[in-house]
């Protein structure tokens, strides 16, 4: 089996941030505007995620559109997982943040104990791939819970959210540059891009009355989705496919 994940480039992070926003607004759109309700939306999207994941697992090599479709669906389901705990089961965000952090830590512990590596560059067996996607699901759930918690506990609106989470990601990038553990910094950035993407989406979609740009959720989602499709098309035909053949580390 060839490596099944993309090279971590600027395009990788751009698609990741945009897919986060689409994950949030997309789920909302189906639940409220289309009127499926939260439960039916969750069931349908979990079904879609399983289908996408099976397609991804069955491929022998990295196929950009399948990989990123899976990320978008993991993003939606991870967000819904947090929303379900908070809104339906009334579980405090402090508890869900702690629980998802523990779940993620447990995933990494198990991953390392079985594989003796947490490398995000050589996902070459189905077992490693399952660890990889489990970790990604929990980073979205944790990013949602931690982002919502900081918004509520600090009264952090989306404008300050964009600034604060960008600064945190920049700090992670700098520590990576100065030799901090690449795997640790990758996952920290992965968690932080969730609240950044949400704040960015809110900034564009919220009405001017609330300090947003006023594009509305539908335009924002369509815009972001178009950019994602464009970038995925770019990496498919132009981008990191050729350089990705060997494991990078």
């Amino acid at each position: 089996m060839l490596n099944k994940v993309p090279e971590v480039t600027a395009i990788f992070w751009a698609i990741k941030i945009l897919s986060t926003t689409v994950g949030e607004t997309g789920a909302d759109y189906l639940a409220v505007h289309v009127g499926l309700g939260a439960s039916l939306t969750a069931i349908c999207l979990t079904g879609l995620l399983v289908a996408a994941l099976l397609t991804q697992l069955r491929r022998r090599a990295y196929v950009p559109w399948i990989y990123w479709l899976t990320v978008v669906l993991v993003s939606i389901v991870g967000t819904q997982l947090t929303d379900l705990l908070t809104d339906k089961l009334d579980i405090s965000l402090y508890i869900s943040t702690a629980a998802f952090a523990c779940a993620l830590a447990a995933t990494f512990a198990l991953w390392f104990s079985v594989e003796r590596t947490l490398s995000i560059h050589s996902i070459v067996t189905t077992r490693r791939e399952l660890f990889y996607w489990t970790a990604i699901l929990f980073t979205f759930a944790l990013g949602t819970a931690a982002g919502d918690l900081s918004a509520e506990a600090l009264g952090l609106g989306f404008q300050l959210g964009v600034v604060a989470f960008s600064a945190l990601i920049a700090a992670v990038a700098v520590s990576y540059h100065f030799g901090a553990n690449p795997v640790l910094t990758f996952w920290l950035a992965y968690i932080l891009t969730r609240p950044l993407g949400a704040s960015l989406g809110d900034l564009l979609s919220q009405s001017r009355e609330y300090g947003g740009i006023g594009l509305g959720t539908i335009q924002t989602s369509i815009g972001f989705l178009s950019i994602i499709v464009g970038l995925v098309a770019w990496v498919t035909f132009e981008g990191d496919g050729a350089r990705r053949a060997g494991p990078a580390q």
Partner: protein
Amino acid sequence: MKLIPAIAVCLVTTFTGEPNTQASRHFTFVPLAEAAAAKLGDLTPFRSIAVDVAGLIDKGDLAAAKARIKDLETKWDEAEAGLKPRAAADWHMVDKAIDRALEALRAGTPDAAKCKQAITDLLTIMDSVAKA
């Protein structure tokens, strides 16, 4: 490597951005204190839909009330990111009340008395939050 320019940008934004984080941290406490006085702000657009719904329930037209309360659900949902940070506790109180009203009107066979009670509670909560 594409990463090099990205890191360079990050470096610049961090060094210029670090004081900003400090500033924003102090900054957040100011709106927090203000939020205690202003709370969620003007809920009139949401309240007027709830009044419509109450009127339709009074007329006995539960189907129309159910259709009208969807406007409230959509509008409230769209404003979440803007409203919630102003006063999260108040927002949750109103949100729960809206959920109860939605649930009453969307029941298999909606009970007019229960719908009336849920929408009355919602209006009471909206008013108490607006006054605080």
